[in-house]
């Protein structure tokens, strides 16, 4: 079996802890030898996933938890961001996420989206992304230390 280190972190699903998560991820990634650029990508992608938990997961509850798992492999970092909150329907949100250049956005400025960039950025900045939203939401993201290792067939996968 492939050997790896596992780091787990649980924080309250509150905005003020997203910055703490960012510091932890930069520590892990810099220790692994990721480049400055890759560390910045990781910080954004993981913050996006964490921000979604803070913003969307526990809308109907008073509070909830955000769980992070880091799988440190010799050639890659896997990060799992999960919650036990509301889930979402991928087909439903598909039309309101993505870059502004997509067809949906040829619309007057006043109708421009102010959101919907989070999942898109995660997918743009990480090498592999899997989302599971059967119960709560689990976002599993992978970034390789050496970019040439990325399998070009690996794209966002939604399992629902």
């Amino acid at each position, binding site marked *: 079996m492939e050997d790896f280190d596992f780091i787990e972190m649980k924080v309250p699903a509150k905005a003020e802890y997203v910055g703490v998560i960012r510091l932890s991820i930069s520590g892990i990634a810099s220790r692994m030898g990721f480049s400055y650029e890759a560390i910045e990508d990781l910080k954004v992608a993981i913050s996006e996933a964490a*921000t979604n938990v803070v913003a969307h997961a526990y809308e109907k509850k008073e509070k909830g938890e955000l769980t992070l798992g880091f799988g440190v492999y010799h050639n890659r970092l896997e990060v799992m961001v999960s919650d036990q909150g509301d889930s979402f329907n991928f087909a439903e949100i598909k039309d309101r996420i993505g*870059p502004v250049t997509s067809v949906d956005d040829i619309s007057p400025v006043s109708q421009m989206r102010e959101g919907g960039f989070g999942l898109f950025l995660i997918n743009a900045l990480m090498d592999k992304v899997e989302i599971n939203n059967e119960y709560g939401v689990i976002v599993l993201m992978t970034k390789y230390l050496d970019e040439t290792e990325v399998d070009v067939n690996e794209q966002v996968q939604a399992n629902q």
Partner: protein
Amino acid sequence: MVNLSIDVIEEREKNFIVKLSGEIDVYTAPKLKKEILPLTEEAGNKVNIDLEHTHYLDSTGLGVFISAFKSTKNNQSEMKLINVHDRVLRLFKVTGLHEIMDLSAEEIDGGEVNNGRF
């Protein structure tokens, strides 16, 4: 450390520089929105957002700038993002927002701002 400080300077009448130092994320974005939006709501205002000391920004920050940008269109004001770092600029490019908003990676020197070219 993981925080944002916001300095609003009125350079001349209706010409503002907003200096942001720190990180723009889900925690600091609401405060930023509250500071910037009123500036864009007054016709004729020119708002320079100086991102020289903004080392981190994510989609929550993009959202604030989109809503301020929309406000400039609705209220006949102007907004420009200046001194945008490579990493931050990258997010505007990836999302296609750089084609819509006025962004500059370089320092705008005093003269240029003051001669009204902006």
